């Protein structure tokens, strides 16, 4: 039974690596691959959910009013 579970886990791991194009990483650094997967799953569970349906992402790119005079050029 344990052997079947282990091979299932192994198959899942291989499949995940294949999906992500990370077969080489799994091969050279199996422990860290597993640790990273686990760290990401924990972080995903831990991060706070947005408070409201209307919470907008913090946008990085802004579209400045190009007609406005820039501070540096003032």
């Amino acid at each position, binding site marked *: 039974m344990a052997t079947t579970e282990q091979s299932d886990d192994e198959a899942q791991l291989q499949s*995940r690596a294949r999906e*992500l*194009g*990370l077969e*080489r*990483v799994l091969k*050279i*650094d199996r422990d*860290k*691959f597993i*640790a*990273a*997967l686990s*760290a*990401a*799953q924990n*972080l*995903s569970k*831990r*991060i*706070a*959910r*947005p*408070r409201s349906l209307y*919470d*907008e*992402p*913090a946008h*990085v*790119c*802004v579209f*400045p009013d190009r007609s*406005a005079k*820039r*501070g*540096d050029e*003032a």
Partner: protein
Amino acid sequence: MTQLAYLSWLEAARKIRGRELSSVTYTKTLLDRIKRHDGQFNAFLRLQKDEALAAAREAERVLASGARLGPLHGVPFGLKDIIDASGIPTTAHSKILADNVATRDAFVTSRIKAAGGILLGKLSTHEFACGGPCFDLPWPPARNPWDRRMYPGGSSSGSGAAVAAGFLPVALGSDTGGSSRHPASMCGIVGMKATYGRVSRRGVIPLSFSLDHICPITRTVAENAALLEVIAGHDPEDPASAPYAVPKYLAAAERGSREGIKGMRIGVIRHFYRKDLVAHPDVDAAIEAALEVLAGLGAVVEEVTTKPLGEFADCNQVILLSEGYAVHREWMQTRPEDYAVMTRAKLLPGAFLSAVDYVQGVRNRPHFVAAIDQLLEKVDVLVTASSMDPPFLIDDEEAKARCYPRQARAPFNLTGHPALALPVGFTEGSDSNPPLPLSMQMVGRHFDEETVYRVAAAYEQATPWKDQHPPLDK
């Protein structure tokens, strides 16, 4: 020799302008010092010896003709090796970019050169400003000038080590989760992460687009303020660059030294280092002593509370890992063996986060910004810990792993507020263990670096820390 090595860049520039100091002599002195000592500290990845001396001679020629380039005329500087300087490699301390020759100066490089600065070389970093210190890269990691057995902080390790060691008066670093404030804290110097958007990131290898900042690293607050004045300003080629005029930061720092901070309000976020994490007793005691100094200068010090540190850290992490992996995915797929083991391990969780995780993080971000803004409605600056621990042995794997989350710097990358790390004392030390630097952090309102510099300069003037230097010459 030592006097020139630790000369303030403002004083050096004044003497060069007044023809009391030759830029060539100054540059040669620093190059000699680097040659003598840097074998122990590995601050430099690349030294531009001939080019720097040629530039120093040219600076003297220009000066003799009656012209003046700018405030840094004839003063040497260094760049973290993720910042482009035209014609020389930007390696990011990585095998992957070992031959990546920059074709153009980064915005900040061109600003410093235009102000008359002389590029002395490129400085050691953690690989791609992430992970580290690593011993499996083409170049060794930088070490702490206070004790070469110790970690100098990172990822701007070489910038911190070089400035503290008196190899350079100024260097630039970058800061995505604390990477300039960390070496400043570990090396007993000053590192400022200005407001997001204040300093252009164009020409700097990204780690996380929305968290990356470019930072001045110096030995004193006034030098830091004056350097920020040089590198800050709008850059139409950086989409996040803010179109605001640059204030007179040096004047703000001088005002702090001259007029003090009587009546200014300082909020202390103690729960970051006493409850959410528990700082080393030496760090806690040094911050408390610093708060007493601030109160003694007439500031009103009060405790304030905000969201738990862990919530800030998690939101910062999900964004950093997602954006970082977006930068590195192709190399992780095709050249994973070319990364250091630790860098790969640091970047890899980003592969397993979903688009939804990232968007949720970005949706939460404004709440963290609002939480810090709310505190700053009632106080002029915030004070909290920078690192929770003093410097530790560079090869202590457990301490290395522990140090990444044991800090309170990442919240301000997430919120974009200006945050400055400055020295607040030293560990006691013993015959076999020299005293090591301790630090704290000051945080201001968005685009109000002036107030941070003012308070920091007043504190610095009232304490002896800026006059302490690593024991290289003993």
